């Protein structure tokens, strides 16, 4: 098991957000975490990625408690792209991506410039940002900017990449662009993807596995086919949906009305 949560309980100022969550993420797979607003998806992602280390229970990476690993050691294996990241106005794409090498640098140990350069170039290549390397991140379009942040995470050379709603605020074209990059990273390099998605149809199209979070815990886990059903949408989101088969042969769900 690559990454797993064991009896994970997260409370914030007295409110329990996740309670006794047990979930494991298969290595090399793309897993989508879905669920209604406020169910604790982002909270789960933050605990999994050590952005928040104040929880009960354990998060294990290959059986090792992540809180007992060094932060930088962890960041060399696991990268997280949270929502709403912002860079100072003059930081260029290249500089931003280079920040992804931070986990490999320290006061005592000189960094390996060749490895740094290769990782940065690879990350820029994979996110198709070659044309923008010297442009300030703040001046990119929404889709390009999101790719730049993904590139920074890739420069960490992670085994596992966690993404929190990576397509929020993007138009449908840029949404697919980002999802395709994520899919390619998984297919070509075997990077385990764990992503919170709000679009059910993205989950259907791009995930191997679905984890549904509801009422402070895991409501269901399985393949998109098993999980993403009309019944589930009714139970979890209170939405009645129709099913269509699209031209790729994938069943897509279209919300029609609220369940009364």
């Amino acid at each position, binding site marked *: 098991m690559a990454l797993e949560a064991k009896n994970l309980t997260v409370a914030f100022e007295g409110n329990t957000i996740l309670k006794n969550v047990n979930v494991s993420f298969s290595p090399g797979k793309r897993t989508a975490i879905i669920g209604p607003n406020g169910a604790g998806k982002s909270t789960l992602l933050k605990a999994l*990625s050590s952005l928040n280390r104040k929880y009960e229970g354990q998060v294990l990476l290959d059986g090792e408690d992540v809180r007992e690993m060094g*932060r930088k050691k962890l*960041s*060399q294996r696991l990268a997280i*792209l949270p929502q709403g*990241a912002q860079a100072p106005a003059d930081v260029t794409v290249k500089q931003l991506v280079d*920040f992804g090498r*931070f986990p490999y640098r320290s006061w005592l140990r000189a960094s390996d410039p060749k490895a740094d350069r290769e990782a940065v170039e690879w990350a820029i290549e994979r996110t198709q940002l070659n044309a923008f*390397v010297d442009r300030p991140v703040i001046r990119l379009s929404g889709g390009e900017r999101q790719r730049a942040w993904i590139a920074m995470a890739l420069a960490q050379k992670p085994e596992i990449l966690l993404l929190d709603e990576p397509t929020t605020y993007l138009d449908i074209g840029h949404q697919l662009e980002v999802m395709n990059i994520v899919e390619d990273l998984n297919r070509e390099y075997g990077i385990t993807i764990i992503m919170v998605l709000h679009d059910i149809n993205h989950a259907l199209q791009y995930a191997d596995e679905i984890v549904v979070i509801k009422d402070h815990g895991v409501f269901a886990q399985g393949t998109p086919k098993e999980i993403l059903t009309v019944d589930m949408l009714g139970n979890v989101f209170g939405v009645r949906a129709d099913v269509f088969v699209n031209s790729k042969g994938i069943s897509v769900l279209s919300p029609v009305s609220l369940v009364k």
Partner: protein
Amino acid sequence: MEVKEEASNAVLVRRIFVLIIFAVLAVGGFMLSVGMGSVSIPLDEIITVIFGTGTGTHEQILWNIRLPRTIVAAFVGINLALSGAVLQAIMKNPLADPHIIGISSGAGLAGIIVMLVFPGYEYLVTPVAFLGAMAAAVVIYILAWKNGIRPVRIILAGVAVSAFLGAGISALMIFHSDKVHGALMWMVGGLAARSWPHVDIIYPYAVAGIILVMLGARHLNILQLGDEIAKGLGLNVELTRIVMTAIAAMLAASAVSVVGLLGFVGLIVPHAARLIIGSDYRFLLPGAALLGAAVVMFSDTFARTAFAPTELPVGILMAGLGAPFFLFLLRREL
């Protein structure tokens, strides 16, 4: 990729060029400050005196008056500018400065208590002010602590504590209005009669501070990306914030305890340096330090020569000239 490499190099060349300009400004400010005054001393004589072969009254003036005062000015500029630059990264707020962590109000009240309530102990102003500044910073830290430090809570706690201490300062000035002149000079900040003992007080903090903040430059760069990104990159955000705030507090406290509340340098210089050199702290920190030294040395020279024999407190001059310049920079940027 050739073209792209060139573009990146151009940024580097520009930054180094700006650093050189700032260094030239600092050296120019030093020479001017040492050379100008009621007796002006030519450049070649300054150099011979500094390298130990000068003689006569000019040597006396340089060694006993001008040099120590100029060195204090340079260190004050460096310390306040570095402190402000560090706090701006930590608070993720371009308007953060040493005021925010209570340095000015803490040093102000402590210094004024000594001057007004215990006027026989004026020689204790500097150490007591230093303790007052650090104490105020610690109190603000404790008040802002709640599962770690958040910039917004520091800023709010800082505003509240500063207002509280400010009330104490005002009350003391009103009750001791007969002795208020020295206290007013202290509140504005000035370099009059600063000499070697003051150099001895400030330089260890300056040297230690410069080394420590430069070691933290890459960490500050990461911190500017926000807490979550910084944590994701493996930075211990809480620890970095505490350590760097402590260093910033120490730098600013050593400066204001020696010259009084010269607050504005800590806000304007790092901000100006950032607009000119960019947000990369590996360049911004040395840039701010050089610019801070240059600004205080130039300002002090002007303040003591422009209306001679009357000396203007340098704090008044810097705020008077600095504020419009600051607005000019901002207008151009926005």
